[in-house]
């Protein structure tokens, strides 16, 4: 795991000696693994029966197919987008309060 790479890193990274996580040729593999894990997490949808929490209010979305998956994804995407927009107004250089 440990490499004797110089501390400065270098402009042209030595691909052969880098950790496999940092090699560009492994990037597609990492994406494939991630998508496989996601598909695996969706697999139980075929046989798990979800109980709706709010049936008396006429709301049954939470028992729908893959609700937690799409809701989790969309709410996170929404929060990142919201942070991005608020960042336009709120972000300042990190020396802002220094004299």
């Amino acid at each position, binding site marked *: *795991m*440990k*490499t004797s*790479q*110089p*501390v*400065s*890193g270098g402009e042209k*990274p030595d691909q052969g000696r*880098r*950790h496999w*996580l*940092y090699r560009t040729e492994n990037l597609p593999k990492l994406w494939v693994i*991630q998508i496989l*894990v*996601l598909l695996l*997490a*969706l697999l*139980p*949808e075929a046989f*798990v*029966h*979800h*109980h709706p*929490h*709010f049936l*008396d*209010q006429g*709301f049954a979305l939470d028992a729908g197919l*893959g*609700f*937690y*998956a*799409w*809701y*989790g*994804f969309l*709410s*996170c*995407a*929404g*929060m*990142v*987008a*919201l*942070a*991005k927009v*608020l*960042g336009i*107004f*709120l*972000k*300042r*250089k*990190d020396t*802002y*309060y220094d004299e």
Partner: protein
Amino acid sequence: MMSELALSPGLILILGGLLIPFASARQRLGLLLGLPALTLGAVWWLPDGSLLTLPFLDYVLEPVRSTAEGRLFATVFSIMAFAGGLYAHRQASRTELSAAFVYAGSAIGVTFAGDLLTLFVFWEIMALGSTVVVWSAGGVSAYRAGLRYLLVHLLGGVVLMVGIVAQVVETGSLAFQAMQPDSLATQLILIGFLVNAGAPPLSAWIADAYPEASPSGTVFLSAFTTKTAVFTLLVGFPGADVLIPIGLYMVFYGIIYALLENDMRRILAYSIVNQVGFMVVAIGIGTPMALNGAAAHAFAHIIYKALLLMSAGSVLLMTGKRKCTDLGGLFQSMPITAINGIIGALAISAFPFTSGFISKSLETQAAADQGLLWVWMLLVAASAGVFLHAGIKFPWFVFFQKDSGMRPPDPPTNLRNAMWLFSFLCIALGLYPQPLYAILPYPVDYQPYTIEHLVTQLQLLLFAGFAFFVMLKQMRRTLTISLDFDWFYRKFFKEIGKEFTGRTSAARAAQEQRMLGKAQRLIDNLYVHHGPRGVLARSWPLGSMVIWVAALLGFSLLLYYL
């Protein structure tokens, strides 16, 4: 029941903490580990109920009241002091260790307070102890951040004191018991509690002060102040509806600001506000299940948040860097720190088989049971957001992302042991929640491990993680901070002050100029008459002198003849 010997278990840490500066290195380790163990023993040794009553003016003080809620919080505070002492004992200054133990002891004192005056006294000792912990880091920025921190807490303390006095005047009783925020007195007490919980608008003090403390100082700070506030809200204001929107605001405030943040410990500080927000919502819901959820979540949170900050503190100690833009790739040379950081990150995200999974789900379940559709929807979205802003963001930017090229080793043994201890607790509580459920304030009728709960939680978190990597480009770290309410007291009022100083000094200069001009004119006038060439200072010619003398003599001769 009354016992003459009953003393608040918090005093063990407060008085013992004051001995720390005078102990030798070996004795100090004994104190750091022995005092919390002794405190834990005392917490469980004391029987239920009010154990000591002291008459005070026309009122009755109950400095030692043992309750299920108090015991639960005092237990986790003791565990925290133990692990914090282990983590800190070689690196932290004696001042910091001493202040941290006084701080921890006063937090435990609050959990055993049966009356509002005792609560207030320990509350203020806590503010002082924690300020000294911030200051112990040394340096100008820690000094200033500590001062701002102290001012916010003294303000909160004043509001709390006014509320307590008004409450005593209204009800004639000092007892600390469940209240409703329906009078000015109870509203002020609620505000006093909420300031310490990190509620809006003053939430900024957490992310402002905590990351300025030393690596170990931040670990101590993360545990006590906000969770003591959760305890007082839990006992004082269960079911107060206003807490639901306040808590929801805190939940999303924490997520958004953590997403914008670049400093790794500040990310975790914002995430404290987020997590306390969950607890505040649950206290606002106020059912036994929700209150159990808030208590269990606070217990689990103290452990995994301390673990995360221990991991971040180790990185800071070994690299001297705190910004995500400077970090990355550290998993290669700090594998133990990375593994423990990841365990903490999984626990805060409520991954199955961790302490977060078995505690936070009580709160969301309570919202569902009460039919609070919107609250439930927002809490589920926020649960995904926790994974996003802390669960992945912290380990990713510190231990992975780009390779920073740094190859620091793992931290010294005592830091590693403290991290392993808390990692063990995170997983042990997740796998075996019964001991925690058994000490919650109300009987627990909840099974966290159902197939449905496991599947839905995994889907929620994994797809939140997917969103993180899909939108990674949107989250590129920048060398920035984010404006918050502290802008008002760090910039706005300062600028106004500067403007005021500038304008008043200009006005003063103009006034001075006018007065100088007047004085000058006066001098000029005098000069005209009395100066070397002035009429009254001129030298007189000899001839005119003789004429005048002759005239005078003539005049006196004339007078003589008359």
